[in-house]
C-alpha cells in the first residue's frame, strides 16, 4: 500500500499541510528542527494511533490550539481514507478514529489497517533498553498481524492492574486473600494465550531475523529467544505457579510472573548476550534488522506491502550497510525518507523519486528533480 495524500491541521509546527507523495521513493530534506520528522510522525499516528516518538498527544497539538487532525488517502486495491482527530478538553485527551468516514471505536479494529514500518534512531533502544522496549516492539508487530492479540493484551492489562490492586489491598487493609482465586484464573487464561502467541510468532520471526542480519552484516547473527517468567504457556501451570507465589506477591504488592515480566533475549551460539559483546555498529545493525524483518513478516502474513518511513536513519550507518539495507528493502514498497543533506549522488540508485524541502519551520515545497 502507499500514501497518496497527507493532510494535517494544527499538527506540531504545521497549521495546515497538504502533501502528495509518489508511490515509490520520497525524500523530505531540511535542516534540523524545521519539522521533517513531524510529517513522518503524522503518518505513524494515522497508522499506529500513537506517535513513534512516544509523545503525549497534548505535545503534538500546535501551540495555542486545542486539537489536531490528520488524514491520509491510502492506495491499495482501492483508495481508503484514514483519519485521526485529537482534541484536548480540561481533563482528558479525546481521540477519534475514522476509516472511510466511518467512526471506529476500538483500537483493535483500527490498528493494522494502514501498515507502516518506521526506522528511526531510537530503535536502538529495542536492543539496548529495558525489556519493556522489546515487549512493546514485539507486541506492536504481533498486534498488526493478529487483532485478537491486541484485544487480549488490553484485557490482560486490566486483569493485571486489578490483581495488583487486590494484592496491595490484602497487604494493607487485610482483605481476604481467597479473593485472588478468580483473578488468578482470569490472569492465567489470558497470560497463556498471550505467551502462546508470542512463542509461535518468535519461532517464525527468528529465522527471518537471522537471515537478514547475515545479509546486512558479515558477522554471526544472534539468535532471539523468548524468556518466559512463567516457564510455560499452559494456563493450568501458570495458575499453579501463581498459587505457589501468592505469599510473595502479596508481600511485594505485585505479580511476579507473566507476560508483563517476560523478555526477548538476543544471544550468540555460546549463549552470551548480544549486548555483552556487540559493538555500537552491530547493535545498530540488529535494530535495523528487527525492522526489516517486521516489514517482511507483516508482508507474508497480511499479503500487503508496508509503507517504509525512514527518519534520519542514513546518518547512523556506514555506506556499505546503508546500501545493503536499501537493497533488502527496495522491493516495491513506498518509502519516505527524511534527511538533512540532499545528496543526489547517493540517491542516484533509486532512479525516480520525489523530493520535498522543508525550509523555514512549517513550510514545505516540492523539489523539482
Amino acid at each position: 500500500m502507499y500514501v497518496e495524500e497527507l493532510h494535517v491541521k494544527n499538527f506540531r509546527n504545521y497549521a495546515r499541510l497538504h502533501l502528495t507523495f509518489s508511490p515509490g521513493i520520497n525524500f523530505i530534506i531540511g535542516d534540523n528542527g524545521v519539522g521533517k520528522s513531524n510529517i513522518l510522525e503524522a503518518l505513524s499516528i494515522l497508522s499506529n494511533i500513537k506517535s513513534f516518538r512516544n509523545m503525549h498527544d497534548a505535545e503534538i497539538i500546535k501551540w495555542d490550539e486545542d486539537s489536531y487532525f490528520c488524514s491520509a488517502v491510502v492506495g491499495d486495491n482501492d483508495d481508503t481514507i484514514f483519519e485521526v482527530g485529537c482534541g484536548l478538553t480540561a481533563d482528558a485527551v479525546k481521540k477519534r478514529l475514522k476509516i472511510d468516514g466511518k467512526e471506529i471505536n476500538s483500537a483493535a479494529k483500527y490498528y493494522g489497517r494502514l501498515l507502516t514500518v518506521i526506522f528511526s534512531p531510537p530503535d536502538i533502544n529495542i536492543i539496548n533498553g529495558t525489556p519493556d522496549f522489546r515487549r512493546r516492539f514485539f507486541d506492536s508487530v504481533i498486534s498488526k498481524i493478529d487483532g485478537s492479540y491486541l484485544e487480549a493484551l488490553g484485557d490482560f492489562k486490566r486483569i493485571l492492574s486489578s490483581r495488583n490492586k487486590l494484592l496491595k489491598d490484602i497487604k494493607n487493609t487485610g482483605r481476604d486473600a481467597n479473593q485472588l482465586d478468580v483473578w488468578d484464573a482470569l490472569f492465567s487464561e489470558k497470560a497463556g494465550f498471550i505467551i502462546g502467541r508470542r512463542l509461535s510468532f518468535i519461532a517464525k520471526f527468528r529465522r527471518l531475523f537471522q537471515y537478514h542480519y547475515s545479509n546486512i552484516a558479515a558477522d554471526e547473527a544472534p539468535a532471539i529467544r523468548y524468556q518466559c517468567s512463567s516457564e510455560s504457556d499452559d494456563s493450568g501451570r501458570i495458575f499453579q505457579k501463581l498459587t505457589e507465589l501468592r505469599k510473595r506477591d502479596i508481600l511485594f504488592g505485585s505479580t511476579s510472573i507473566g507476560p508483563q515480566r517476560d523478555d526477548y533475549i538476543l544471544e550468540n551460539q555460546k549463549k552470551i548476550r548480544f549486548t555483552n559483546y556487540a559493538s555500537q555498529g552491530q547493535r545498530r545493525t540488529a535494530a535495523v534488522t528487527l525492522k526489516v524483518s517486521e516489514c517482511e513478516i507483516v508482508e507474508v502474513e497480511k499479503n500487503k506491502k508496508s509503507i517504509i518511513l525512514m527518519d534520519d536513519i542514513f546518518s547512523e550507518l556506514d555506506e556499505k550497510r546503508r546500501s545493503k539495507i536499501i537493497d533488502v528493502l527496495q522491493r516495491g514498497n513506498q518509502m519516505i525518507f527524511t534527511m538533512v543533506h540532499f545528496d543526489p549522488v547517493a540517491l542516484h540508485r533509486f532512479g525516480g523519486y520525489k523530493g520535498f524541502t522543508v525550509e523555514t519551520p512549517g513550510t514545505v515545497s516540492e523539489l523539482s528533480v
Partner: protein
Amino acid sequence: MKSSSYLDALIKKFSKLPGIGTKSASRLAFHILSMPTDEVESLGRAMVDLKKNTFTCTICGGIADSEVCAICHDDARDRSLICVVEDAKDVLTIEGTGEYRGMYHVLAGLISPLDGVGPENLNLRTLAQRCGSGAVREVILALNPSIEGEATSLYLAQLINPFGVTVTRIAHGLPVGADIEFADNATIIKSLEGRVKISR
C-alpha cells in the same frame, strides 16, 4: 446568561443527571417553565415519592414498594430459578422480554478491585441463603462480558458450588440478526466457545 437564579439552579441540577449535558438541561428547564403549575407539582411529587416510598427488596435486592418486591411476592413464578444481574435496571430489561418466569437476584455492582469494590460490597449474603434453602435448582448468571463481569461470575460459581445448585451463564457471542461476516474476532471466538449442540 444570568437571567434567573432559579433557572440557573435547575439547569445545574439537571446537568448532573446521567446522559444530560448543559444544552439538554436548559431545554428541560425551559420546558418545565412552560408546563402548567399542577403538572410540575405532580412531577416533583412523583420524584419525591419514588425516593421516599421505595425500598430495596429484602429477598432479591431489587426495587420494591414494600419490604418484598412484586416479583418475589408472585407465587406464579418459578422459585427454583434465580437470574443474577448487576443492577435493578437489568431486571426491567429482562422482564421487558416477558419470557423469563423465574426469580432475580440483584448484586448492586460487580467485583472491581480498581474501584475498590470487593465481594463484601455486593448483595451476596441473601444469595447464599437462597441457594442454601433447597428450593433453588439453577442460578443463571446474566452479567456483562467485561473483565469485572467475568471475575464476578467466577466468584459466584465458586460461592454457589457447595450448595449443589447448577450455575449457568447467559450465552456470549453473535447478537441476534448479526452477520458472521461483519463480526469481530473476539465475538466469533466467544461464539465458537459457546456453541450449542443441535443433533446427536
